[in-house]
């Protein structure tokens, strides 16, 4: 039995709308999964911390634990991962990152420099558990988890 052309055409038209909605639902699903995965990632505990040793009156509290990400920007600007709102700190002061199985600290061309265990660093330096990092008037002990 032959299907009348008009009915077949409407079948194709409605199938188009149906597939449009299925595509939309799949896209929603993918968006939902992507956002959830990213949310879980953000909630995962940090692998390392900076523990504040010395500070200034309005600065971070002494013994506060500042969590570090795989890459953390440190500086005065509010866009940093670790914000140090001290006049002696530059807007983008330093970067701490985990790569090649180790932690590293690098100065980002700050005015007053970044001190590692009391010495101003020139390039990227390896960070070890218990190292003292000083930025502006804030001194912090690096503490790797495990």
């Amino acid at each position: 039995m032959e299907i009348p052309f008009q009915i077949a055409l409407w079948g194709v038209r409605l199938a188009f709308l149906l597939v449009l909605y299925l595509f939309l639902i799949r896209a929603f699903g993918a968006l939902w999964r992507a956002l959830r995965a990213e949310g879980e990632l953000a909630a995962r505990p940090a692998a390392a911390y900076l523990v504040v040793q010395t500070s200034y009156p309005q600065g971070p509290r002494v013994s506060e634990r500042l969590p570090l990400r795989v890459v953390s920007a440190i500086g005065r600007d509010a866009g940093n991962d670790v914000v140090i709102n001290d006049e002696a700190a530059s807007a983008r002061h330093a970067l701490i990152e985990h790569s090649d199985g180790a932690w590293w600290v690098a100065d980002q061309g700050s005015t007053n420099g970044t001190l590692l265990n009391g010495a101003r660093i020139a390039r990227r330096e390896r960070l070890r558990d218990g190292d003292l990092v000083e930025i502006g008037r804030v001194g912090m002990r690096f503490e790797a988890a495990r």
Partner: protein
Amino acid sequence: MRLRPAFRGTELGLLVWVALLVALGFAAVVGAETEKLDAASLAVPLAYLSVALALHLFLVARGFRGDQLLLPLALGLTGVGLVLVERLAPAALLVQQLTWTIVGAGAFAAAMLIPRDLTAFARYKYTWAIAGIVLLLSPLLPVIGREINGARIWIGLGDILNFQPAEGVKILLVIFFASYLEENRELLARPPQRLGPFAIPPLVYLVPIVLMWALAMGVMVLQKDLGATLIFFGIFLAMLYLATGRATYPALGLVFFLAGAFVMARLFAHVEARVDIWLHPFAEELRFGPAYQIVQALFALGNAGLLGAGLGGGMPERIPIVWSDFVFAAFTEETGFAGALALLALYLVLVFRGMSIALRAPTPFLQLLAAGLSFTLAFQTLVIVAGNARLIPLTGVTLPFLSYGGSSLVTNFVIVALLLRVSDITRRVRGG
């Protein structure tokens, strides 16, 4: 080497639906036209899908591990756009649009590779600003400048390859604003001074707003391009707000813009005409004259109903130049409220994904870049859809990915590529 191929299952899965969607769309449109359903209608979808698959395989081969949602969404919308070009435009335009799709795919691939370090963009910010302004003003030059349908916004050589530089300028502006605001936002975000009950930012901070406003108004006067003016100024205000969190800036900018637009409407006949058409489309002297286009579009929307007239079954060809300014009205007439709703929801997912990439991006520059690009897509969709529905005066901007038009398609593919790259950087920095 880090060029290990990466399996992108979500993307591939979504592309299967894109393939089905485009094939069914072409079958319906060609079927309604030729009064038979046959496999010949699938030639164009197959050509298009091979381009789509090539882009997917390009990302897989490059070992690209960023977002998997944006590319299928963009390709899905572009595919629906091809269906509409087949339905609405003269046959020659379909070939052109398919060619532009391939150019767009090439531009996408190029933007995925160059520059190797995306943050290098931020270093040359004034170069981008100057390049943007030169590009914007290039249609005013003799020889290469073109005036089409009353707007001098095209450049071209010979009869083909007409390009609207204002499209590409959007990306340059977003890059410039992102780097400028990353550097100056602390200054701009400072609490404003108080003058009695009014909070006013110090005068120097108004300089960029005034400059940008002057530029926007200049474009309006010199090129008669209302759409570009609105888009540029909207991008600027949105990014200023995103960077500073101060609502004073967009509020002030809006007042400036409305004041400027009001004066323009009084001074220039073409602006005044647009407003008249918007307010009184059915007026005796307008409805068969300059308002004919919007009147026909309103009839098209009014006839849509829940499921529409069916693809190929309506009369959208009664709207002059329907394939560029009125694709939304045409799509709604033939797929109804159901189709329009799904279409707008797809744009919403696209923009939402872009904004979520912006939120996670590791540096202010990348955040502002991704947010600015996403906002560009969202704002443009809003302006043209609202224009089609006569909620605001119609301005000639394209519906991203859907309208016929090469410059717009290429630009939007580059926008998607940049968003993907930001998501890739985020993934490498934050893990996941």
